[in-house]
């Protein structure tokens, strides 16, 4: 082997090694909090705050998971989160897709600026909406109801859904709908053809919408009062308000369970989401 070739191989190996080191650091940085939550959740109560903290628990226990329902109405919180996220998802996708379809297919006075307006509304700090949303919910009698939380969640998910779905619809040639109309479909039914073609995009949007709503905390905290409508993030946070004996083990167990749907979704759709972002949508 020539000297030059050996040098090239060495340089290639080092540069590859460098990439792996950077990726490893990034991975540890991202996953360590998660690992810490999990390891805390399986430690016995008296070992959780031990000094120095132990990275790998000496003893594994699932007592924190068993105590979940004793310490807080975990299942109720989980159910509330599921209903609210499901509602935000259904309404957000329906309204958002229709709006996106309209923006993609029709021109109306100001349509060019409308999308810009939608995107800007996404950039406004959500805290600015807290008071108006609370007043609206109060006046409509929606405080401490599912819909009372779904409503502000729509503020978060709609701009994103509209923006993303419009990009997907723009990619679908109009000829499909036109062919459907000539084949005998009404305008509305022809739109469903476009919706069906945009299904991969709709899936990606649904997952990102799900994450937005599932993780949302501020609005849920503001417009809920009782466990009847409080979501899991709110329920977990409320445990921190105890004056004595914050149940760290239970909190981390609940937090870990709260993350599971997100992991599951992430695993199934990572390919599509990555593709969506690579495409620049």
């Amino acid at each position, binding site marked *: 082997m020539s000297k030059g070739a050996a040098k090239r191989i060495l340089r290639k190996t080092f540069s590859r090694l460098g990439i792996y080191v950077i990726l490893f650091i990034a991975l540890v940085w991202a996953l360590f909090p998660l690992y810490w939550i999990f390891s805390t959740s399986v430690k016995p109560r008296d070992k959780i705050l031990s000094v120095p903290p132990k990275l790998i628990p000496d003893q594994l226990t699932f007592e924190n998971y068993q105590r979940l329902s004793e310490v807080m109405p975990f299942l109720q919180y989980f159910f509330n989160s599921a209903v609210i996220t499901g509602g935000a998802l259904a309404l957000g996708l329906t309204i958002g897709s229709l709006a996106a379809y309209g923006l993609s297919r029709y021109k109306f006075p100001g349509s060019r600026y409308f999308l810009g307006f939608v995107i800007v509304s996404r950039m406004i700090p959500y805290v600015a909406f807290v008071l108006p949303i609370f007043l609206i919910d109060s006046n409509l009698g929606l405080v401490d109801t599912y819909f009372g939380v779904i409503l502000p969640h729509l503020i978060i998910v709609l701009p994103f859904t509209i923006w993303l779905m419009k990009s997907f619809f723009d990619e679908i040639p109009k*000829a499909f709908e036109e062919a459907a109309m000539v084949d005998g479909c*009404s305008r509305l039914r022809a739109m469903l053809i476009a919706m069906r073609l945009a299904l991969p995009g709709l899936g990606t949007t649904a997952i990102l919408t799900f994450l937005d709503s599932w993780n949302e905390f501020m609005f849920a905290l503001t417009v809920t009062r009782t466990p009847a409508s409080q979501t899991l993030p709110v329920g977990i946070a409320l445990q921190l308000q105890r004056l004595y004996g914050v149940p760290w083990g239970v909190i981390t167990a609940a937090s870990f369970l709260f993350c599971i749907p997100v992991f599951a979704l992430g695993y199934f759709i990572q390919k599509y989401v990555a593709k969506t972002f690579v495409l620049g949508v």
Partner: protein
Amino acid sequence: MWLRRLFWACDKMVDVRLENVNKSFGKVVAVDNLNLKVEDKEFLVLLGPSGCGKTTTLRLIAGLEKPDSGSIYIGERLANNLSPKERNVAMVFQNYALYPYMKVFDNIAFPLRVRNTPKQQIESKVRETANMVGIEGLLERKPRQLSGGQQQRVALARALVREPALFLMDEPLSNLDAKLRVQMRTELKKLHHELGVTTIYVTHDQEEAMTLSDRIAIMNKGLLYQLGSPFDVYERPANLFVAGFVGSPAMNTVEGELAEEDGDYIADFRICSVKLPKEVAETLTSKTLVLGIRPEYILVDEKSPHGIVAKVEVTEPLGRESILLLNAKGVLLTANTRLMKPLNVGDEVWISFVENRLQMFEKQSAHRIDLSRITLTNTPSQSSS
């Protein structure tokens, strides 16, 4: 014939009339006061360059666009306010528009399902139609698993299956390779002959237009320039645009001036002079005329003493025939000729013209001057010798 029995549309009179139809997109006029009648069972081709308004015209007939003004009749019905599905037309799109998530069978069955056709009938009709266009073995495949030609057949089958009153085709062969295009052209013609359904076909390919059509409508800038048989538009082009657009290689055009000599009206085109009848010459608005000579009507002979001498500038041998670029008295002419022996650049040849195939146009209006027979009085080479 079983095909005719299968398609009820054949028994219905379906002509299409467009009366003073206008359509603009913003400031762009796509269709400008179009008047057109497509006869029952006719195969009409809308031909023109990109942006001439031919596709817009087709979309207006399909109901995918609404005219700004004017009337569109399909059969006896005023169709202006009818939705596409109410018009009973079938359309084949340039990119076929096959639903990618459906199998070929479902794609073809789609128009029938939309109309709530009984399941058994769908099954038999889809299979019959697939058989007709030769895709019976592909029914279980998805469109992405098909070649361009097969996709084109599926699109055709989807249009055929529901027995439309009118076929609209928007450059359906433009995505196919040259060989397949020629094959599909023949099949389309055969299919039209068998079914006899009124068909309006859009293309920018003049060869396709000439071979497929009963009549050709040539459009440019939203205007209908000429409507006539393939023979008419080729041999009697209505204006300079049609003359230049139809035919490959394009028609040679040579400008000349009209002058009166001893009561005779003679137009001198440098390569020849043409005598115009007095009654024609007096109606002309300008004295500058354009002589049109199709490349195949230039006769090339090595030794003929008749005609004029021209120098070969470029030769393009095509096998059976050759395209020659000739310089005759400073005028560049393209000739399409069959030669017994090859010519070289720089060779001198004698050329003459087929008199009764020459065309003449007014330069200013670009309109064809209708002369039953053009008379060449002499050629400059003869007069000078």
